[in-house]
């Protein structure tokens, strides 16, 4: 089991949007997908998941539809809306800028100053 990483504040929405962008998925699937992609490093608190999903749906970034799950149960599937895709793009760009900036700071050497 790899080391668990702390989820940075404000990144939950980004992770959920990304997980849903990979294909229509139900709530539990979102959790599994994030865990699986991060190699188990990121675990979402189950209590935080549904408020975040409903908030994103309320904002029109994702939409839902009832369907059948893999075990033939009725399940609610989420998918990204056009506004959600746009938001994901913006959030990704913002995140990359942040990573690059922090990376640049951390790579800095005294002679570069």
């Amino acid at each position, binding site marked *: 089991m790899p080391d668990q990483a702390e989820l940075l504040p404000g990144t939950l929405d980004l992770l959920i949007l990304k997980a849903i962008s990979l294909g229509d998925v139900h709530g539990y699937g979102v959790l599994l997908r994030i865990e699986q992609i991060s190699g188990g490093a990121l675990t979402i608190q*189950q209590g935080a998941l549904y*408020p975040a999903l409903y908030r994103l749906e309320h*904002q029109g970034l994702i939409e839902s539809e*009832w369907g059948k*799950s893999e*075990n033939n149960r009725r399940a*609610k599937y989420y998918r990204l809306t056009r*506004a959600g895709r*746009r938001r994901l793009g913006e959030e990704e760009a913002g995140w990359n800028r942040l990573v690059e900036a922090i990376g640049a700071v951390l790579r800095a050497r005294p002679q570069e100053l």
Partner: protein
Amino acid sequence: MRVPGSSALSGLLARLGSLWSGVFRRADVEAEMREEFRHHIALRTEDLIRHGLPPAEAARRARIEFGHIESHRENACAARGLRLFDRLGVSWLDVKLGIRMLAKYPWLSLVSVAGMAVAIAIGAGGFGIIHALMDAPLPLDEGERVVSLQNSDATNPGSPDRHALHDFLLWREQLGSVRDLSAFTDDVRMLAIPGGGGGLVEVARMTASGFRVARVAPVLGRPLLDEDEREGAPPVIVIAYEEWQGRFGGDSAIIGRTVRLDDAVHTVVGVMPEGFRFPVDHRYWVPLRLDPAADEVGGGPEIWMFGRLADGVSLEQAQAELTTIGRRMATAHPATHERLRPWIRPYTHAFVGVDSPARAWEYRAVQIGLSLLLIVVAVNVAALVYARTAARTGEIAVRTALGASRRRVVTQLFTEALVLSLAAAVIGLAIAEVGFEWIRALATREVGELPFWIDLRLSPVLVAYVLGLAILAGVIVGVVPPLQATGRSVQGSLQRLSSRGSGMQLGRTWTALIVTQVAIAVAALPYALYGAGRFARSAAAVPDYPVDEFVHASFSIAGGAVPAAPDAANEAAIAARFAASAAELLRRIEAEPAVAGGAFASHYPGSEPVGQIEVEGAGTRSSAWFNEVDVDLFTVFDVPVLAGRGFVQADAARGANTAIVDRVFAERVLGDGNVIGRRVRRVERGEDGTGEVEAGPWLEIVGVVPAFTPPPPFESAAPKLYQPLALADARAPLHLGIRMRRGAAPAAFVGRLREAAHAADPALRFVDLGTASQEERGRREGLLALALLIAAVTASVLLLSAAGIYAMMSFTVATRRREIGIRAALGADPRRILTGIFRRAARQLGAGVLAGLVLAEAGMRVAGGSWLRGEGAHHLPIVAAIMVAIGLLAALGPARRGLAVQPAEVLHEE
């Protein structure tokens, strides 16, 4: 072109949809949440079983990991924005109850909804128009960063100085906070398309940078380029998509084709996309060539300047920089620039008359004032609902006793009021849309195409505003009365309920409300009635000349019509050319077979300005309306001379000093008797602000004509004085009345008139052009609409006031029903009891009428005059009598019911 705020709109719609299902499908939404949670736990349980846990342990672990379902549900509801509704406890049941209440009290509902709908329609109409004028986003990429620039005149803030050629060039060089500073001028040119077609068209002469500001690419060819502005560059033109499709038949080889604008051949180099009308309502664009050497500072053509704010620069920062440059310019050129203040503002403001910050505030004040009207109406409705709530005190007490919290009761009553105000909002919006449609049709007819950004219809912002108004009205109507109704002990309410009385003791509050209500109605409604009557009467008045046979044109001459010269010489040269061109135009028109005659006037008959007149020997001054007219105007307009003579050519000579007056002038200003030969003179306040009077020369009256145009609204008659017009001294714009021969349609002549003007002098510019009957219809419809608007508002306020007073009086007497019954049972004289009731009602109504009279008189004194002694004397007693009658009628019913009570029944109740 980009649709601004489309993502914000889709986000708003998503939120509204989510809230809607959260409120109206609450049970379904919560059931779905629980099902989703159960599904989650089931899947987790299966996973744990796959990892080797026994089923029971796996289920237990899954539930523990998931956490407390109820708190997840609450958090999820909060995430959907439903927490507020949870706190308030609004439910679909409350809404259904509200709808039932509407049906249960149909008259109350009808009166309340009608009153609020009219108020909401007026508020929405005013908001919509002012929003469209001032706040509508420019439908261009980052349109909110496009700005207008101008030199405001500090001594006359309403009329900006647009002769800003040198300022423009300086600003373009020095102003860093505005990018792509551009300019355009409006021009009317004769378009000729080889092979046929063409006509007069409006052309924007614009700097090429204007296309960079718009950020819209052509669909064919290219936009204007900086090179096109250079001296000696071949003339080019860019055309609108609609013109390409219309006049040029969608020719696929349009690029490179040549057209003539006036005498110059232009090559078509581009076609703009459909709907592109930048900078205002233009369809043709040619380069604007500016030559600073040709004009002095403060001279040159009239230009409109605009640009884009540089990245990261605010309007205030740009203004600060512009002000600094403006100060330097004022120091360098004090003669022309000392009074000028450069001003930068949102692009659209320059084209809708927002010429100064004060004007912007005036618009806002109107917007707020119209919204306040709803508050007045809502307070009235609140008084009505108060009476209904009072009748339901028993129901409220029982519900409270059964455990309903005060908040719950208030929420339910608020929801009922909200249903009422939302119904009014829907109707109000529908009325506003009908009004917008009417204004759109009127504007298209009167001014042609509207600026491309003005879209007068129900926008999401307007709907949100109306919803806000409806909620505000709901709060006034639905929160205040229930708060008072529920603010007392349950036991007391129940006791009162058991004795079948109403629980609400209102006393002084009620009396104050009745008095205020009557006072406001008596003070305000007569003014409204008077205004509506005046407008209606003015709309019904018809001119006494053959309007249907006339074409009306007003025109001026382009500033650059003569070569540049020092100011005085330049003005004289322009005036001379204007006079010559106007005379030539009239000559050409009168040569047309369809034309019976034409005459110039400084103002078109019926739209004269008012001034002061002094009669020789009388020493008094009075108001009169002035016009300078061609010597044969009365002949062309078929106006007979009643006494003396008409004008002759010699009257137009300088120093002749003759005048003709109309009959109203003769009767009102000069009094009866022979007026021919009497002398009058115009007096005006000097422009130095000291109040000194400047008097014109004495004018000898040589003739009397009838009043042949209706007086302006609010004037029972307008005394008019006509002086002969000398074309050489005429100022632009000059008005021209053209009478067509019988059988010739004036409307068909309008196009011909444009061509005649162009042939007479291409520099002539029409300010206004149309048939007199069309203008007359516009005037009548405008006045009638105003009259109807005032009548609708008055009717709704009167209706609400009457209903409010009725409800309050009726309720006051109803609360005394038992007392009346007991007194009757004890043998009191019924007449005495009735007198007592009416005395009290009459005292309240009398106090209201008196307060209203004082208010009306005070209002009039503030406005400068005592209207009570004028025409208002007729309206005031009518309104006062209506209010008193309503109040007494309202007292009558319950009083009679009180007297009819059987003593035994009352004693039994006790």
